[in-house]
């Protein structure tokens, strides 16, 4: 369904995407585009959705170049990040226009509109102007406009931004159902936990490069190689330090007034043992705080690792 062969993208002198190659099969499934801000996720989405031509290499979607290609664009749906409509406009009228732009009209448009609004849970609320809608409602309408014409490929750019936990879970459920129904879904995010709950396959991007490609466990394993710094505030820091040096995941240790900073690999293995030690009364801990659990630090580590 999607095939990139050394596809690159330049914005003038700035390299937005280094030459990257990958293939995604058709027939449903969810793929996550994971990377920190500025990694090139939106650039890659623009290549896939035909908004930009590649500066080098080739991009094929449904076997053809998507740039300015109505035959490809008619088969895909894009959910961009952020609002894309005049605030005073009514949601249902906006959707109607988007449906008409996709070639729907008359009864077919009415039916598609009704079904899509039902699927996205906006059947009773779409007649409001956008400015009176909550962020979650606007996000659902953004999704609805992409689903109106029943796309085979659905691309979502940071769809979970600004959604409350319940909204995220509902959106995840909906995307899973669409993927199960044969739609290939591509979701970009900078939060691993979100993508991990949703996808069977991840493309890891950093500074315009495709850093890794694989399943969630494979990516997790890769990320576990990065030592995570944890600040432990304790009544007796020396006791915590003594306990920590016996743990195989400890990479470094630094004593601070009132606590200790531990650099640990595989925190998913380390933290349950720390929890057990606290519960058994072996350690007296007042606070536990991760210092660099953001993707930027992890990606920087991986990049160093790759050089």
């Amino acid at each position, binding site marked *: 369904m999607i095939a990139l062969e050394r596809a690159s993208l330049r914005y003038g002198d700035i390299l937005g995407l280094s030459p990257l190659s990958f293939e995604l099969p058709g027939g449903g499934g969810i793929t996550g585009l994971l990377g920190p801000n500025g990694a090139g996720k939106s650039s890659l989405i*623009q290549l896939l959705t035909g*908004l930009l031509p590649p500066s080098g290499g080739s991009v094929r979607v449904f076997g053809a170049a998507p740039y300015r290609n109505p035959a490809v*664009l008619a088969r895909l749906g894009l959910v961009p990040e952020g609002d894309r*409509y*005049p605030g*005073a406009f009514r949601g249902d009228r906006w959707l109607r226009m988007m449906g008409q*732009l996709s070639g*729907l*009209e008359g009864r077919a448009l009415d039916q598609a509109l009704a079904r899509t609004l039902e*699927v996205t849970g906006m059947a009773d609320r779409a007649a409001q102007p956008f400015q009176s809608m909550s962020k979650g409602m606007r996000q659902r309408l953004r999704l609805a406009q992409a689903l109106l014409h029943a796309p085979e490929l659905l691309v979502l750019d940071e769809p979970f931004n600004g959604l409350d936990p319940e909204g995220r879970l509902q959106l995840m459920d909906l995307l899973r159902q669409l993927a199960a129904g044969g739609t290939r879904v591509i979701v970009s995010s900078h939060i691993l936990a979100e993508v991990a709950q949703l996808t069977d396959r991840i493309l890891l991007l950093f500074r315009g490069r495709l850093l890794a490609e694989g399943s969630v466990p494979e990516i997790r394993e890769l990320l576990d190689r990065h030592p995570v710094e944890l600040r432990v505030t304790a009544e007796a820091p020396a006791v915590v330090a003594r306990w920590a040096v016996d743990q195989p995941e400890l990479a470094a240790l630094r004593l601070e007034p009132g606590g200790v900073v531990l650099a640990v690999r595989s925190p998913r293995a380390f933290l349950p043992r720390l929890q057990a030690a606290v519960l058994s009364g072996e350690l007296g801990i007042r606070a536990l705080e991760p210092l660099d659990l953001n993707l930027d630090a992890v990606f920087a580590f991986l990049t160093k690792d790759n050089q």
Partner: protein
Amino acid sequence: MPIYAPSLAPRPAPGQGQPAALVLLRFDLRRVLRQRLGKFFGFLFAAILLGLCIQLYLRHLMAGRGALEALRPLADAYLPQGARFQAGLLNEGMIAILWLQAAMVGGGLVARDTLHRIRPLIYAHPVRQRDYLLAKALFATGLPLAVMLAYIFLPWGLSLAVAGGAGPVWPTAPLYLVPAALAIAALMGAVTLGASALAGSPRSGFGWALGIMLGSSALSFILAGALGSPGWLALGLGNLTKAWPGLVLGVAGDGPGPVPVLLGTAFHLALWLAVARYRTRPDGAVL
């Protein structure tokens, strides 16, 4: 929110449905009609037109056709029925207000899409750039044209209905004035479209459009004065729109001649449509 198993409607066949330009045009029309600005200009033009018709009726027609026939020599001297009068149906004052309206409405057409980042989403649908530009150009041109057509056909119809061929408006006046109105509307449409494409918000689009109109007029006066040739006046958009009605009716006066007016019109159309085309290209619509 209840989650239902997605069962979406079937995908439309390629090429099915309404032309994208028509869909976008309707969207812009609905957007403008909802604004207070649209209602204000509608009222203003209607009020002026009404005044014009009342004036025509009171001054020229109330005395009755029979009385005018009896006073034919006096009426001929008194009624301004010449070509200059016909050209005056598209008078300077109305054109100036029309420029203001075109700058306000047309200046926001593309700029509003830029402000709300709508264009990438539109281009992610099977919409070509020429569909997008065609919709905007039709709207930017159609709005001033509609106003001017009302100014041509209402007095013409009234004159014909009340006085027949002897009325103050020539029965053939639309044949002259409609092409002039088309040229003026095309100029206003192209300039405001180009200005709107340069702007990042409707307000700055209005500024760009007005600035281009006034700036080109000022430049044309300077060049015509410095070089001693009235032909340079055709560089100014204000002069061009003022010249067209007189030109088609053969009463151009002191303005630039037909060749400079044609060249000036072609120059502005080409320039501002090229600007709009460049600034709305799909690869410029970044997410």
